[in-house]
């Protein structure tokens, strides 16, 4: 219904009048009196052309006005959000990594939530999903956690560029990426706006911890970040 309306409007679009709207807008914006103000004096003072000697034929019914710009119109119905396609498995064959992935959000302190078990990776559910064609698919896992064995992503620091990474999704598809870079960031300097970007080129971003461990705070100094691009 709304789609039909939108198409109809598009068909009736009159591009030339767009300029008129912009000009009118500019005049309004630049005139202190606002929308109700009169036309500039220059327009008033231009000499009017004399009326034509012979009356011109008038069409029997004037054409109805047409919209001056193409405006998207849709129903105000409550939107049904598009469901994401979650990655459910992460594999890096060269490192003998093949681990389950669950979806995670944000922890209390505003940091990314992570599965407690280092053997399970977390996919940031608000970012790009397994089938996205833009933005970063971000998957992270603990390198270690108290009372658990050291996790598979401990080996991420050894991944050479060019290695294959495969994610399997909950719709049954899988997608292959190629490691492009491996970088250590001090956690205080992690470029979260780049790593969590919702737009831009598609990349799979894998994050874990590394570098020196501070036993007083219980945290590693660094994040180890691997970026992989679609093959």
């Amino acid at each position: 219904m709304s789609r039909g309306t939108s198409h109809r409007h598009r068909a009736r679009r009159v591009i030339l009048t767009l300029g008129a709207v912009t000009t009118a807008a500019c005049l309004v914006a630049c005139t202190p009196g606002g929308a109700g103000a009169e036309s500039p004096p220059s327009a008033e003072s231009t000499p009017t052309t004399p009326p034509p000697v012979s009356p011109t034929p008038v069409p029997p019914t004037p054409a109805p006005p047409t919209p001056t710009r193409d405006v998207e119109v849709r129903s105000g119905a409550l939107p049904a959000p598009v469901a994401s396609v979650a990655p459910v498995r992460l594999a890096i064959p060269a490192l003998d990594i093949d681990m389950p992935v669950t979806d995670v959000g944000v922890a209390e302190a505003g940091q990314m939530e992570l599965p407690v078990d280092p053997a399970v990776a977390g996919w940031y559910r608000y970012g790009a999903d397994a089938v996205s064609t833009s933005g970063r698919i971000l998957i992270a896992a603990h390198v270690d956690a108290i009372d658990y064995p050291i996790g598979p992503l401990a080996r991420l620091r050894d991944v050479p560029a060019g290695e294959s990474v495969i994610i399997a999704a909950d719709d049954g598809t899988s997608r292959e990426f190629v490691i492009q870079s491996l970088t250590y960031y001090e956690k205080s300097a992690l470029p979260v706006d780049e790593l969590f970007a919702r737009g831009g080129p598609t990349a799979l971003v894998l994050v874990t911890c590394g570098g020196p461990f501070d036993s007083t705070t219980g945290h590693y100094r660094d994040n180890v970040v691997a970026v992989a691009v679609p093959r």
Partner: protein
Amino acid sequence: MRKTVAAGLAVGMITALGLALPAAAATSVAQLSVLHAIPDTPVDVYVNGELTLDDFAPGDLAGPLELPAGAYEVAVTAPDAADASAPILGPATLTLAAGANYTAVAHLTEAGEPGLNLFTNDTAQTAPGQGRLTVRHTAAAPAVDVLAGGSPVITGLTNPNEAKLDLPAGTVSASVALAGTTDPVIGPADVAIQEGVNTIVYAWGSAEDGNLAIAAQTIGGLHSNPDGVPSGTAGYLAQQDASTTVLVSAGVVALAIAAAIGAGLVIRRRATVR
């Protein structure tokens, strides 16, 4: 500070991610959406005398239009009017500020008269993991409460006002009841609170005519990112690395001692030969 494992890989990283930062350029335009919330009557909408929305149906949302900041004259006419000279609503002057986001709503006042109201949409960033719910009372009805899961979260909202709150992403079962009551006059309806999205819900129509309804609008891209990724808490890997280093160091020392002893033997042998 960041330490890159291989210089060549760092170049790749920059190529992949370096263009991600949005250009925070100052904007001179405003965003304007238009909602038709007067029951039963399709209308035409004129902006500065130009027909902009033709046969605009009740419950429909148009836009957003990107317009240079400034003042605009808006008039609402019967659907087949020849021009804006005989509006049924307006003309009204809407002043739009650069960088701001607005929704103009043609709706009924509490008394049931047609009215035009310009709302400013809150596009401030939301916390990571949260979305925003804005509720606007644009119906011919008295003050209302908004209930989420049966409990009031917004109370005493009157036409033409709004209330808003930021909530964790998820689904809220929302309903509207007359203020001080819990018997829904609208809903309950499942409202998706999407992360980084302002979901604006309008109560519109007329209580007297029994056609109260909701309309919705969403404005996305308000998200912010987590502060960090705390992906290690035990230090086991660091311990393992440290013990490996100790073993390697011990091995190096042992080799050095062996070499020294060997060298000493050679010297002694030479001494013996001499």
